């Protein structure tokens, strides 16, 4: 019997980067899952929560819990959104009813790479991607979900792909949600520092598990005239 997965596409992938959601479906199906997409889904509430608007975040998070209540697994192509669902504990600390519903779902809410490796125990998805790729650790995937190895394990199994590391460790890309537009110069300086960590690596692409980091890095690369490719992990795994 195949594993049932409810896809949470995330707003960013849904609205701006649909290829990422499409690739996620493809990868999950390749891993033997049955994927459903509930069109009532909207957002996890992170933008409001991270900006201090907890009441607004709660309203959206309640809707999220309504949509995904009862799901066997909720999987999303984002470490940041998965981490946000884990933060529902903090958000609903004073609402026992919602807290109980959140608890129910938190353990079954996964970022894509974490789901594949930790839950399904799969690393080889038969993907091929010729080229040298640097993996960017998105902060929430790395630090809140503790997933350093999972995405790398998947990338190592991709035929033709040579995995390399940024020379400046696991530092933030500077996106940070509304941070990117509240402090645009600072955010951009952080992106430039992050990208300096690829200098001399002669890579063909950068990949990560979060569309937000990739939007930041891609936006900056394009503006500075670089034609370095920026791809979501799901896109590589689906290739």
């Amino acid at each position: 019997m195949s594993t049932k997965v409810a896809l949470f596409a995330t707003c960013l992938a849904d609205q701006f980067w649909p290829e990422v959601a499409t690739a996620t479906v493809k990868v999950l199906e390749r891993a033997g899952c049955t994927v459903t997409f509930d069109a009532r889904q909207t957002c996890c509430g992170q933008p409001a929560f991270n900006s201090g608007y907890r009441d607004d975040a709660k309203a959206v998070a309640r809707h999220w819990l309504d949509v995904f209540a009862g799901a066997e697994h909720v999987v999303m192509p984002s470490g940041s959104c998965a981490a946000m669902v884990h933060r529902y504990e903090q958000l609903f600390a004073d609402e026992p009813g919602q807290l109980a519903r959140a608890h129910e779902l938190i353990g079954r809410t996964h970022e894509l790479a974490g789901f594949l490796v930790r839950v399904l125990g799969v690393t080889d998805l038969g993907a091929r991607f010729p080229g040298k790729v640097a993996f960017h650790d998105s902060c929430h995937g790395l630090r809140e979900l503790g997933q350093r190895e999972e995405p790398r394990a998947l990338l190592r199994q991709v035929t033709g792909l040579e995995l390399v590391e940024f020379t400046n460790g696991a530092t933030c890309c500077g996106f940070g949600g509304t941070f990117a537009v509240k402090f645009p110069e600072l955010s951009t300086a952080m992106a430039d520092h992050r990208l300096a960590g690829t200098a001399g690596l002669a890579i063909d692409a950068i990949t990560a598990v979060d569309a937000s980091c990739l939007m930041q890095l891609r936006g900056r690369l394009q503006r500075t005239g670089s034609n370095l490719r920026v791809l979501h992990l799901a896109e590589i795994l689906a290739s």
Partner: protein
Amino acid sequence: MTHLDAEHFDQNARAALQDATLRQALRRATDLFAERRARAIGAVEDWEALREQARAIKAHTLARLDHYLTQFADQAERAGVKVHWAKDAAAACRIVAQIAADHDCHRLVKAKSMATEEIGLNAALARADKEPIETDLGEWIIQLAGETPSHIIVPAIHKTRQAIGALFVDQLGIPPTTEPAVLADHARQRLRAHFAQADLGISGVNFGVAETGTILILENEGNARMTTTLPRVHIAVMGIEKVIPRFADLEVFLRLLPRSGTGQHLTTYQSLLTGPSPQDGPRELHVVLLDNGRSRIVADEAMRSTLACIRCGACLNACPVYQQIGGHAYGSVYPGPIGAILSPQLDGHAGATTLPFASSLCGACKDVCPVKIDIPSLLLELRHRAVLSPPPHQRRRPFLERLGFRLWAFCHRGPRRQALLMFLTRLLLRVPGVRRLGPAGAWTATRELPAPPRLPFRRRPEARR
């Protein structure tokens, strides 16, 4: 010697980004710090156990701080310390000035201390014509330059050797040099003249042991030893959160603090002072216990762990925001991630509606914190409070932002509303001028914004499942 305004963090940050020398100095320093710290903790097998132990000790102590502070004060008094209680910065400054006056002290020397920076002690004493000479090399450089520190443990981290060399030529009339060893030697000679005459020494406190009334001061240069040995009176200013229960607890903190701060196994000197020692040191030892907002933080369960901080500075070095702009932009005594949570809560509430937002929430600070303070969660809590109930006289969040999130939340409570919002957003983004306005404009000034695809995922065939 005043701070920038924390309420204008955005402008301060922008200015700092224009300073290429500053950014070069910061990059060099924070990279070096990270490397040294990694090497030092790599050699410790039980690092995580040590962090957990320190966290647990602090959590316990802070939740019973009334008890441990009483015990500390009683034990210190039993050992001959004169203990003073200062509910705020003004009271603390008044107490120190009064002790100096009572003992007819006129030549003051001072060892590096964040608590005395916090209360603005030098400025207060200067008004009584008793400004102390800073004796830590970095603090002395800052004092000569008429600036404020930009890092908790390396106050002059923002200055290059060229800048310091020029400062010494200008202020001390030395022959031109940029050699750190030569500059340090000039400092040694000059400051010795002050030490030879000093009659009052002022220091901070790293740890206060409740069980014994002992205060502990860590340093590398020897100036704190001189400050606490040579003058006839020693005053130590101590935040009330510095108390730890047992003498034996010092081991865990001594193993964590230097490794996290400078990457040393142990700083060169630790002075453990339990009362005065008239035979070979000061005749009187005064400890000024400082509240200045701390009791309010202790009472605030969600934020209490802010006070577990042992001021190692590791979160500054690890912070990608601090790495870009340094400490001055925060406009508060405590910069970096710890400053962004601590300053808004202390008396004065510096930057309460700006500093908690000065972070991308990357969590690097939490990773390196030796006492495991969950700084991102505390930043989020303070953001919530800044929105909900900003302290008096602080700017509220902009009306448009409030309205925007209200509208955003309304539209994300159901798919049809969201579809309408996204339809309008996508439509708007196609209008050329719009991409230069508001948040979109902030983005597109330096980055490309992807053109919205013709169809979102949800309207594609592969979404029908």
